[in-house]
């Protein structure tokens, strides 16, 4: 999230698209309602289903799942045609003026793909900028040059007419125009608009580009960096922001440092390659500091036990261009590539796309370690539906861990706010905090390597681990020590020049906490586990995420003394774009930052240099401005509408290119497995005629791994259901409460029918197309009719039904490989009916 939850109250128009906060982030509604009550804000909801959020919206527009880019592309066209954009903002703070390589071809002139598409991927040389002799990007401040970004944007989205968009999305033209007009009204300096999205945008083959389209709109309207603006990624887990910040993904080290690849043999080569360079003279290019962060991370791993180059060499490298992400893991596992697997605080047997493939894959590993609070479908996969334990070799360890109130530590919410949690009680019986468990395993493995040796053993044995002490038989993990490690230390006495005041020096002693990441060093004299969190622990005030000061000096809800947010306690990132070139807020009534003649007041300024010095505010971009044109992505510099892989229509009404050309198909020869099947790819498949989307309900969380075991919640939402529109139910002879079977090319799941007007058929180019929806919180372990052995835990309130992910295809977004759970093809029939 660029802003934070309380900031919703500062918005004038709140676009809920790709999410359903009333159900899934219920308390956020407090701030949406506050905007309505105090500012007369308007809520727009765009969703295939008339959700709880839709029921509270002033304006609801239905759209067919998987057509968000068409819908929003139409909005871009409307904003440009009607000159609703914030011209001064885009001229100075975006790349609208940049001139692009004249060889670039847009999809409208190139059969639906951008130039450079060969052998299933893009060569991006025609996507480049024009530069002068000194390497500076050529620009046209009038934004009239036919090759400037602004004109290319206009040209690209000129194809997205309301009539065509309506045919693709199934949204009536008048609704489209109503949404475009209302949201477009936020392009004025004194109006703010925000989009709230969640998995409704990410879980598509065009997921990244869905979000890009909204970013383009927010930039055109000058909504980035301001109070009540931004793009709100509402995350699905309490700490998924934090776990991502800390690099629990194959492609990033903590702090968004790209994992090293094999072609970069030394730290020097890695830094050289990954540190962006710019010829734009006023650009701060913050990532120029990359070598300080990589060196400090390496020190947080090995301390002084290894030199920096040695530490870099010891750590694992990816093959260049290879993907090691979720879908790939389970594909490789299914093919027998792994002997061991940790499913730590996760339940992939229900959360993984094509759960049958995941469950089969688990039978192929020699050992599985599953750490969780309750018995679950992953730890117990060997006795799940269709499994014969006598034939399954997998050795399983199911380790009981402490719940959030049984240990201490911090989590980061979607607003990047890191809050501390305290221990209230001991965990039940012998259950242990995750930190204790992983430390114990680490010490045991380390001991084995110290005794018996093994390949590259120093990479493991030289890790530093000063994170607690022995208490009785067990290691007691101390999160406060780790919080300090993440912040970082000086590892040697050092005199350092103040990064913000030339000529002023400060002396640090070995062991001192590093004040902020601006003080981190590239020579190995500092450590920091995750540079964006540097500044969260201080010598005088301790762990800042523990703070509980509710004062709100600006009245905007920034509450700078409540906990701590990264980076450097900044509550609204990109806030340097909330002021004009002279440092005056675009909207003085909502000033996030303000120049008082000597210094900035308000929020911690982001990218704002001294007014009048011309520094562009988007300092994390090498050229200092935000990207209307984004040549870095795998599937195009502008978002283009493509159909979901499984879709209900024969062709893309916009171009001859039906699907995102850059996706990885697991059904291709030599790629996936026999289980990777899709329906309706080349032409519509009558066996699976309906669009299906998964979603959540308030009462459960994720796979229900915790909530299904809580009787209050299980009583309120007791099992799998399918929402079927009234017309479709009539056609299929389904009544409310009937047991139904929902099936896809990959599996089936039993559901109770909810016949509802919340789903209405879509008119797609003259065809009536139905969509159905299913929640994904259920699993067989908490059902009544499974086999129970003596000693098995038995839910106090049973739930019924299994995982919605049994139906979801193994196809991912072209950039992130997040599975397309929000738009696939399915069938629904009354149970017992063929």
């Amino acid at each position, binding site marked *: 999230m660029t802003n934070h939850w309380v900031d919703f109250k500062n918005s004038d128009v709140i676009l809920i698209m790709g999410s359903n906060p009333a159900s899934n982030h219920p308390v956020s509604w407090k701030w949406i309602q506050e905007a309505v009550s105090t500012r007369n804000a308007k809520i727009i909801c765009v969703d295939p289903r008339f959700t709880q959020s839709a029921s509270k919206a002033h304006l609801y527009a239905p759209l067919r799942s998987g057509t968000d880019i068409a819908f929003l592309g139409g909005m871009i066209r409307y904003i440009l045609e009607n000159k609703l954009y914030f011209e001064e903002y885009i001229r100075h703070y975006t790349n609208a003026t940049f001139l692009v390589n004249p060889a670039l071809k847009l999809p409208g002139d190139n059969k639906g793909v951008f130039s450079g598409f060969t052998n299933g991927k893009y060569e991006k040389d025609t996507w480049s900028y024009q530069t002068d002799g000194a390497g500076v990007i050529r620009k046209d401040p009038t934004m009239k040059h036919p090759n400037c970004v602004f004109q290319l944007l206009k040209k690209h989205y000129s194809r997205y007419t309301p009539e065509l968009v309506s045919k693709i999305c199934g949204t009536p033209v008048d609704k489209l125009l109503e949404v475009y007009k209302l949201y477009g009204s936020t392009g004025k300096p004194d109006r703010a608009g925000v989009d709230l999205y969640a998995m409704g945008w990410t879980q598509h083959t065009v997921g990244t580009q869905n979000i890009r389209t909204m970013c383009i709109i927010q930039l055109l309207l000058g909504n980035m960096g301001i109070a009540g603006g931004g793009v709100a990624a509402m995350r699905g887990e309490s700490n998924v922001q934090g776990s991502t910040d800390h690099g629990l993904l194959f492609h990033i080290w903590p702090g968004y440092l790209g994992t090293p690849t094999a072609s970069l043999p030394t730290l020097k080569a890695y830094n050289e390659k990954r540190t962006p360079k710019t010829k734009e003279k006023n650009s701060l290019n913050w990532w120029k500091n990359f070598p300080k962060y990589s060196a400090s991370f390496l020190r947080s791993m090995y301390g002084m036990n290894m030199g920096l180059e040695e530490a870099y060499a010891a750590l694992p490298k990816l093959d260049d261009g290879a993907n090691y992400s979720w879908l790939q893991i389970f594909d490789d596992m299914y093919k027998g590539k792994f002997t061991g697997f940790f499913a730590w605080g996760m339940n992939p047997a229900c959360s993984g796309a094509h759960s049958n493939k995941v469950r089969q894959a688990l039978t192929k590993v020699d050992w599985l370690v599953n750490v969780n609070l309750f018995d679950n479908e992953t730890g117990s996969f060997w006795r799940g539906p269709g499994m014969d334990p006598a034939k399954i070799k997998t050795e399983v360890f199911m380790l009981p861990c402490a719940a959030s109130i049984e240990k201490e530590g911090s989590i980061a919410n979607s607003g990047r706010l890191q809050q501390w949690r305290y221990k209230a009680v001991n965990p039940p019986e012998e259950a242990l905090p*995750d930190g204790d468990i992983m430390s114990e395993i680490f010490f045991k493995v380390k001991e084995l390597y110290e005794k018996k040796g093994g390949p590259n053993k120093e990479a493991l044995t030289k890790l530093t681990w000063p994170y607690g002490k022995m208490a009785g038989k067990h290691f007691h993990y101390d999160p406060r020590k780790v919080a300090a490690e993440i912040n970082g230390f000086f590892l040697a006495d050092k005199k350092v020049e103040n990064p913000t005041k030339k000529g002023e020096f400060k002396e640090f002693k070995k062991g001192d906490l590093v004040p902020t990441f601006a003080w981190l060093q590239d020579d190995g004299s500092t450590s920091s586990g995750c540079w964006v969190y540097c500044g969260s622990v201080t010598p005088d005030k301790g762990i800042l995420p523990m703070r509980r000061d509710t004062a709100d000096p600006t009245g905007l809800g920034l509450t700078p003394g409540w906990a701590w947010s990264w980076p450097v306690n900044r509550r609204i990132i990109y806030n340097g774009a909330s002021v004009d070139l002279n440092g005056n807020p675009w909207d003085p009534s909502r000033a996030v930052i303000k120049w008082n003649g000597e210094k900035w007041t308000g929020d911690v300024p982001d990218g704002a240099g001294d007014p009048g010095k011309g520094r562009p505010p988007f300092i994390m971009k090498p050229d200092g401005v935000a990207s209307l044109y984004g040549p870095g992505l795998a599937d195009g510099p502008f978002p283009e509408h493509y159909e979901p892989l499984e879709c209900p229509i024969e062709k893309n009404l916009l171009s001859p290119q039906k699907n995102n050309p850059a996706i990885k198909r697991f059904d291709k020869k030599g790629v996936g497995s026999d289980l990777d099947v899709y329906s309706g790819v080349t032409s519509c498949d009558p066996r699976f005629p309906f669009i299906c989307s998964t979603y959540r309900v308030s009462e459960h969380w994720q796979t229900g791994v915790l909530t299904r075991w809580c009787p209050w919640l299980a009583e309120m939402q007791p099992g799998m259901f399918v929402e079927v529109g009234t017309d479709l139910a009539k056609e299929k002879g389904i009544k409310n409460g009937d047991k139904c079977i929902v099936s896809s090319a990959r599996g089936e799941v039993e559901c109770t029918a909810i016949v509802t007007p919340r789903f209405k058929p879509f008119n797609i180019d003259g065809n009536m197309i139905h969509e159905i929806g299913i929640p994904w919180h259920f699993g067989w372990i908490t059902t009544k009719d499974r086999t129970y052995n003596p000693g098995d835990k038995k839910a106090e309130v049973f739930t019924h039904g299994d995982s919605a992910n049994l139906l979801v295809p193994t196809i991912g977004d072209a950039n992130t490989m997040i599975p397309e759970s929000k738009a696939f093809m399915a069938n629904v029939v009354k149970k017992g009916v063929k």
Partner: protein
Amino acid sequence: MNVSRRGFLKLSGAVAAVSGLGISLKPAAAHAKELKIKYAKETTTVCPYCSVGCSIIVSVRDGKVVNTEGDPDSPINKGSLCSKGGSIYQMAVNENRLGKPLYRAPFATEWKEVEWEWAFEKIAENVKKSRDASFKKTNAKGELVNRTEGIASVGSAAMDLEECFTYQKFLRGLGLVYIEHQARI
């Protein structure tokens, strides 16, 4: 932690109001009823479910959670909670929580309770065996990769930040590259 005086007064008021509305006791009996958080020790926590970050007060007496409710001091939730956040009590007070390490031997049809020490040792042996057998110093091109290809890990956004850092440290120290979690799905 300290709940502020102001916060505590607001909080007690809220509790009394809820009791008055939700329980049909005669006025005299209601008057005589003691607050369930009397003599309880309070700590704050943050909801483990969605990403809003609602603050919750946990009341503990004699080592048992006796009550959980929204923290009125939080500028985010100001005391409100949704159905999930309001049920945190049942996460701690729940007979179905796993309390002992469980082990399932190859081809076995049942779980067996085991000692932590035994489990840790056996897991460590497995890790070493898998790592040693699948460790690649160099790739097909002969480039240095120092990676363990035979072990994968998923998880977890359900852990604390500090644990996430520590876990990735352990995994990368082992040489894993197949490291993923909830953020990808």
